[in-house]
């Protein structure tokens, strides 16, 4: 990071002070047109679904209306209705909000675990690192999808919270490994040694010295993980092991397509959700890739 900043400074000659990590990230996004468009799209769709959802009544939308089963799109139902006569467009809005919420929640929770794990393993190294890495290796080889599905179906009093906790328990490893590698590199540098020599408590070195120097990588990894988590949630809901039907998500809308009749003849139920998942995941990735370039001075554009 130190070196990157110096390069930036020499190149731009703009200021006497080197730009902070956040400013570098922001500059890279603005320079990349695709990432900027994606970011605007994400901000718009997020404010839209969270804003509209304030005025929409979820119980109204998921109420079964037997007189309007499988209606094709019309003026009254913009995207038609599903097998319970429920408005697909309303479900799409609420569903996007729910999918985004759980994606963000899982990403934050896995992020916290991964940061603590990575910092502890990377900073202490040696035996601590060895033991922690063996634990991580074990979690890595588990067949994620099947274990999560089994837990989802055997947990008593299943709820959205337990769903996100189960996902978190088996999703933190990739990030933890990355953060540990970065923290390990950082901990070998002189400033950490100096802080140690001065008798600074380990916990303070980890969170106020090492952490600020790896946080741009953390932001990148979490952005890319957010896209994956939204995809995983919709995949699990699609199989019927995520959100229940009473809480619509993009995945539950997709799960109607498991009925061949719906898949073949009633595209309005599942296709909008599919397109929306793709657009959201692609946009988040676009932003994430731009951020990734920003953390590597050699790849920055301009």
């Amino acid at each position, binding site marked *: 990071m130190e070196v990157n900043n110096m390069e930036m400074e020499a190149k731009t000659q703009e200021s006497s002070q080197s730009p902070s990590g956040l400013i570098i990230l922001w500059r890279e996004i603005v320079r990349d047109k695709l990432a900027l468009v994606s970011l605007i799209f994400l901000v718009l769709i997020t404010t839209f679904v969270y804003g509209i959802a304030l005025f929409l009544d979820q119980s109204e939308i998921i109420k079964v209306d037997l007189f309007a089963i499988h209606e094709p799109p019309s003026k009254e139902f913009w995207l038609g209705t599903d097998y319970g006569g429920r408005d697909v467009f309303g479900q799409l809005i609420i569903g996007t909000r729910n999918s985004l919420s759980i994606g963000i929640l899982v990403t934050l929770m896995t992020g916290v675990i991964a940061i603590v794990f990575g910092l502890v393993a990377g900073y202490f190294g040696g035996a601590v690192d060895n033991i922690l890495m*063996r634990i991580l290796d*074990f979690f890595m080889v588990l067949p994620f999808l099947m274990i999560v*599905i089994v837990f989802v179906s055997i947990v008593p009093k299943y709820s959205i919270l337990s769903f996100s906790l189960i996902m978190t328990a088996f999703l933190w490893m990739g990030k933890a490994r990355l953060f540990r590698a970065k923290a390990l590199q950082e901990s070998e540098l002189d400033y950490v040694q100096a802080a140690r020599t001065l008798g600074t408590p380990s916990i303070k070195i980890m969170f106020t010295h090492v952490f600020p120097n790896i946080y741009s990588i953390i932001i990148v990894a979490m952005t890319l993980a957010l896209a994956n988590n939204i*995809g995983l949630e919709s995949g699990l809901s699609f*199989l019927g092991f995520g959100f229940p039907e009473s809480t619509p998500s993009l995945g539950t809308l997709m799960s109607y397509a498991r009925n061949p009749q719906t898949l073949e003849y009633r595209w309005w139920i599942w296709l909008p959700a599919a397109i929306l998942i*793709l657009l959201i995941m692609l946009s988040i990735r676009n932003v994430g890739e731009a951020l990734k370039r920003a953390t590597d001075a050699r790849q920055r554009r301009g």
Partner: protein
Amino acid sequence: MWKFTVRRMLIMIPQLILLSLLIFIMAQMMPGDALTGLIDPSVDPETIEQQREKLGLNEPWHVQYADWVSGAVQGDFGQSFRFKMPVTDLMMERMINTFWLSLVTLIITYIISIPLGITSGRYNDTWADQAITSYTYIGFATPLFIFALVMLWIFGFYFGWFPTGGSVKPGLEPGTFEYILSRFNHLLLPAISMSLIATVSTVQYLRNDIIDTKQKDFIITARSKGAPESRVYNRHILRNSLLPIAAFFGYELTGLIGGTVFVETIFSYPGMGQLFIESITLRDYSVVTATTLLFGVAAVLGTLISDIILSIVDPRIRIK
């Protein structure tokens, strides 16, 4: 090399033990036990109690665990509640179906990804490379189940080119040429769907590796000695870049496990993944436990194979 292989295999043992423990705990948490699959509810409680004693269900957990593991090693996973038959017999046919699906998927994956990766790396920053890079970019962000659904919708239902479910057309005699053709026809669309997503990481790896190798000193040496371009690529660059691809075979296998669950469900292809989803929906837990264990062991073995091949291909890994 042997040292690494032995050490790597030793690491696998605690992994397998932990895996079996985790699955055993999950099995204990599931409602019902091995007996619920065997008896009908009208039998009086005393007989049930005797049966429980006989099957060892009243023993402490570690004895039960040992029984379960030794049974599993010998291929005895108990009785299926739904089919009233041994789980092992039930899984045999499904396992063969999944094996063929995975094999065809792997073959298609390599057929597509290696030429694409080589083209993309050799002619980088041309229009062909840009097209391939866009494909991998979109492929990375596309969840498999959405892609498979769209493929089924377009090619299965709209055009009707492929069958939309099952593993073989009913009424055909096993062993005949038509039977084999029908089976192949049934697994082609799921396999193509899975491979088109699975190729993405191989293509990207190959592209980056070739671009990296292109600038290395030994390639410049080869060129300056007057080696023709085809020789530079086939003998010097590809030999370097293709070997790790071969080593990723095991990781590919691990990745397929999650894929088959989605793809088999979507195409109603009677394999292990579909069996798993069906059994868990119908609460046939002895089957769930057995399939999860098998998939877990497959994942552990896949990683092991890749690690060992990788250590043969790339000696630097052995030093760690």
